[in-house]
């Protein structure tokens, strides 16, 4: 039996240039055809009173609201599995082959707690801030049956989303991949003396629907853990999060984490990528301290020279960031925090609620309080009236002509703490 020590994962990318309804769910010449009835039956759940699926393509005059999550369709072609611990098993996670429908997203919607769902416009100024505006999206619109709790509603939408993504990815198993990207971390020869870096991925685990799932496990109950970055690419982390739209990390973001991507690209070139620490962010101080202790313990064990830490959510998790910066400084480990700001509508307020002199390296994804006017869209998928109560909306956000005057906070990933886009802020 051939043994392989290093994990190696081939992402087999199948580019999706368009999505259409058809009699059969299949990929044909970069067009994803979707059998609507079949997909509806995949999404069906006893907690839904109605289920529908719509399509939203880049450039169309479509507003999707309120958006809960976005998921990139992926599948392990050799086992037929994906989303280990939720839909699939653990065989081959992080290695072998993974099929990816590149340029396609499953967008789930629903008025779960409403405030914490977001907005995606498929055209107009939103597209400058939102990566999902540029994707061919398959949108779930499901109404909950009466009398269920928001927790039951959230779970039903979350699971429907991953089932839909898995179902769509199956259509790409037999077509030829457009591009194959291999992800492996061969040891860096010591004589190259490259800086040893760890990525610290803070994952919100605050309870009350501010939750994520690692291998299907509720993050509130998981410990800080060292992971191979390939595990994230293979669907280890699924978002169950209903926190402010601009700063929650979607399942798509975990599958395509930009810090992982950047460190991978530079592994053996100007750094040595040691791995990912995923650590839950809870609201309790003792648990924050436990997480910070564990992060630094792993970093020191691996003899890391530096860490990049990304926040999820805002406000409360800033305490975790500052504690990490302080402990890292004490341990002589260089630390960069990636976060967003709440600097007020005019940018004149304190950007963070928690600060520390130890936070010497900060990358900001901008001030999410800044206002933007989004013009009316011809078609609305979901509930437009929700815009008034979204976190980042104001009571008169919806104007008579259908345009909305909102803070960036309502746009999915607009000021993403993962540093997905080029947005930032500066002081003048």
């Amino acid at each position, binding site marked *: 039996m051939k043994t392989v020590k290093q994990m190696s994962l081939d992402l087999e990318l199948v580019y999706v240039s368009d999505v259409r309804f058809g009699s059969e769910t299949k990929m044909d010449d970069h067009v994803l055809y979707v059998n609507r009835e079949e997909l509806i039956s995949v999404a069906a759940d006893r907690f839904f009173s109605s289920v529908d699926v719509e399509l939203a393509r880049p450039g169309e005059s479509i507003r999707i609201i309120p958006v809960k999550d976005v998921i990139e369709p992926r599948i392990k072609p050799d086992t037929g599995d994906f989303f280990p611990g939720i839909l699939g098993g653990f065989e081959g996670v992080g290695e072998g082959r993974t099929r990816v429908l590149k340029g396609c997203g499953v967008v789930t919607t629903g008025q779960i707690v409403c405030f914490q769902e977001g907005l995606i416009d498929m055209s107009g100024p939103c597209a400058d801030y939102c990566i999902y505006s540029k994707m061919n999206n398959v949108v779930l619109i499901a109404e909950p049956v009466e009398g269920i709790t928001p927790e039951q509603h959230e779970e039903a939408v979350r699971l429907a989303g991953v089932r839909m993504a898995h179902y769509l990815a199956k259509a790409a198993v037999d077509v030829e991949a457009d591009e194959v990207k291999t992800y492996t971390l061969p040891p860096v020869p010591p004589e190259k003396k490259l800086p040893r870096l760890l990525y610290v991925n803070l994952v919100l685990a605050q309870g009350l629907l501010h939750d994520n799932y690692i291998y299907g496990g509720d993050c509130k109950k998981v410990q800080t853990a060292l992971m191979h970055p390939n595990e994230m690419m293979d669907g280890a982390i699924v978002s169950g999060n209903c926190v402010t739209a601009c700063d929650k990390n979607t399942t798509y973001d975990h599958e395509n984490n930009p810090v992982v991507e950047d460190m991978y690209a530079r592994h053996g070139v100007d750094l040595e990528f040691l791995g990912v620490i995923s650590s839950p962010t809870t609201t309790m101080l003792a648990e924050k301290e436990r997480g910070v202790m564990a992060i630094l313990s792993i970093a020191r064990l691996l003899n890391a020279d530096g860490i990049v830490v990304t926040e999820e959510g805002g406000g409360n998790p800033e305490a975790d960031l500052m504690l990490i910066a302080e402990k890292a400084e004490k341990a002589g480990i260089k630390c960069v925090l*990636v976060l967003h700001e709440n*600097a007020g509508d005019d940018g004149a307020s304190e950007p963070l609620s928690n600060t520390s002199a130890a936070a010497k390296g900060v990358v900001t994804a901008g001030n999410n309080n800044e206002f933007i006017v989004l013009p009316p869209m011809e078609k609305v998928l979901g509930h437009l009236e929700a815009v008034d109560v979204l976190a980042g909306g104001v009571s008169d956000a919806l104007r008579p002509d259908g345009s909305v005057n909102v803070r960036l906070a309502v746009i999915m990933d607009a000021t993403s703490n993962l540093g997905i886009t080029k947005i930032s802020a500066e002081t003048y």
Partner: protein
Amino acid sequence: MKIIHYINQFFANIGGEEMADIPPEVREGVVGPGMALKAALDGGNEIVATVICGDNYFVDHESEVSDWLKKIIGQYEADLIIAGPAFFAGRYGMACGGVCKIAYEMGIPAVSGMFEENPGREMYQKYGFIFPTDNNARGMKKAVTAMAGFVGRLAAGEDIYDYRKQGYFRRGIRRNIWRESVGAHRAVDMVLDMIAGRPYETELEMNTFSRVEPSAPIADLSAAKIALISTCGAVPEGNPDKIESHAATHWQIYHIEDYQGPELIHSVVAHGGCAPTFGYHNGNRMMPVDAMLELEKQGFIGEFDKNIYVTVGNSMPVVRAAKFGEEIAKSLKESGVAGAILTSA
């Protein structure tokens, strides 16, 4: 651009200290240092009127002058205000800063000039583009050249937000921009620079917060009226005053009866940073009205104020929170409250 120029009694050649109490007046065209400004400004930018006010009058009647000046600015359809330069004149600096603030509130840019140690500079630099000057009027030409040059660049639509390049005092305002690479790449670059000991620039300097001195303990709680303040956003059903779920713009007083009595069953939660449904129809889960009433019953406190102060603390800018604090404190004092308990979501 149509410009209004603000100067004091001294630079209008009306008089010195003895004339510092004159009320504001407006004159067409330029007066005093306005002439040098006019000469330095580009053709398209014109001082349409000059406002003159005594320094003491401005400081003593700020809200009255503010209302008046806003009317004048509207009347002349001014696009920009120039105040001063004030050099090291303290009260003039305060007035010029106050004028910058008035323009800021109207969404109009303001340009001024002050000596670095002028108290108006630090207090008001957020509100306008204030240029450093000498400490006396002998530096007029230099100041006017800097200010007028900047007005020209601003009017031409140039990018004027690099304070180092433009030369004005850093205003301390955050503004969203697009950088050359994505945040993740910048973060990896930055940590590598830090490890290698190369120069790097953080994208956000850490702010420091002002500290609030705790007041002295209440001598006799059993005689004290105690209020409840909550940032949890537990509001009467329907959220009648539409308190926003995020970065709320106002606070409200709700009487216990607005929630249909102490059970707070007529309650929903406007807070957008938590799962709010636990507080629906049971506001006591969000703010301890039941416990306060129990303490009142036991005589542990003299009286529980049945008017509850409510807002949403989610993503609240600190400046606005401080303003709410001042307003609420004033209201508490007026209603004879001796102490308050503040709870969050």
